């Protein structure tokens, strides 16, 4: 019975909650925010303590990424990139370094830049570049995200690049199972010339030369999916409470000192849409 009264107070405007659903009171909204924050920090803690449970299942095929890259180049009237084994090794080394030192960046926390991996693998270049991606569902979404970013697109459609290398590697980053995609691009120095003209490479550039490991991770609980579900539920709950409140206030012709439910609904609706349309995956 008490639970019923509590629910009524929470969602139905009447005299006991000052004619406004209690869930919409500033104090209740603060509690909801606090609850969400606690759940997020708990999720962070859980990802660190149980990295084998939380993760991300992807289906990215290196050969498909390269095929799509070359398809974009052909559509722009450019020569396709050739897959190079040494560049594949470069991409593998970069991915391995990010997992080993737990970072997600073009330059490692110790200051190691992408070009050192080219040198380590013995790839002498005139031009070089690197595109990074993580946590995408499939090859199409990786290339699609790169093409939507002007700097990454510049790398894919750079006429100076002749070769490419790619690595798709699964591992644990910040305690979460992650799929990293590293695509590197390069134009080798002319064979006899030992005086390599090292131009300043472009971050976000790549062309796959060697197929790295095609890895399909096992399905796991994704922190992104969990957060998205919680976000949709929470915003949906408030949205629903606003609809009920607006309907009852209008029907009972209640006059009260309050913000406009219609405005709240419009704002919540737009942000709910933003949450729904936000897809997993990040590029660098």
């Amino acid at each position, binding site marked *: 019975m008490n639970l019923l009264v509590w629910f009524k107070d929470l969602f139905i405007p009447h005299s006991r909650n000052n004619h406004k659903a209690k869930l919409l009171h500033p104090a209740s909204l603060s509690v909801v925010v606090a609850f969400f924050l606690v759940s997020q920090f708990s999720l962070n803690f859980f990802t660190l303590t149980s990295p084998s449970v939380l993760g991300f299942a992807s289906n990215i095929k290196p050969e498909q990424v390269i095929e799509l890259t070359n398809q974009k180049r052909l559509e722009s009237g450019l020569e396709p990139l050739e897959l190079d084994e040494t560049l594949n090794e470069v991409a593998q080394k970069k991915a391995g370094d990010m997992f080993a030192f737990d970072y997600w960046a073009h330059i490692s926390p110790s200051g190691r830049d992408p070009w050192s991996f080219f040198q380590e693998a013995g790839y002498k270049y005139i031009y070089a570049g690197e595109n990074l991606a*993580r946590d995408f569902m499939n090859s199409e979404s990786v290339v699609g995200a790169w093409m939507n970013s002007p700097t990454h697109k510049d790398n894919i459609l750079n006429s100076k690049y002749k070769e490419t290398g790619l690595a798709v590697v699964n591992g644990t980053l910040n305690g979460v199972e992650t799929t990293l995609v590293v695509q590197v691009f390069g134009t080798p120095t002319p064979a006899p010339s030992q005086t390599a003209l090292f131009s300043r490479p472009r971050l976000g550039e790549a062309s796959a030369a060697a197929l790295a490991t095609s890895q399909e991770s096992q399905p796991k609980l994704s922190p992104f999916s969990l957060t998205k579900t919680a976000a949709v539920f929470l915003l949906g709950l408030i949205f629903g409470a606003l609809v009920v409140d607006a309907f009852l206030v209008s029907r009972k012709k209640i006059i009260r000192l309050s913000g406009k439910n219609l*405005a709240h609904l419009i704002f919540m609706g737009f*942000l709910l849409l933003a949450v729904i349309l936000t897809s997993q995956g990040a590029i660098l």
Partner: protein
Amino acid sequence: MKDLKHYLGLITILSIGLSLFLLFDYNRQVQLIIILILAAAYVLWGTFFHSVKREFHWRIFLEYVGVAALASIVVIFLLLRT
């Protein structure tokens, strides 16, 4: 409809914001800034709207801050997950 022009203004602001949010799908930092600007714009809109209607009260202001904070925090945490 009463207050139509105010609501159209709000919808315009939010539509522009959502379009930019989707346009910068590849850049999480820009998306975070867009959400923060939208939240601030919403609070300002509410303050302006109720001031024009001569019904502004600090409790109403808090309500707009609460709604804006809740929605933006949820979106920001989602963006930070990738």
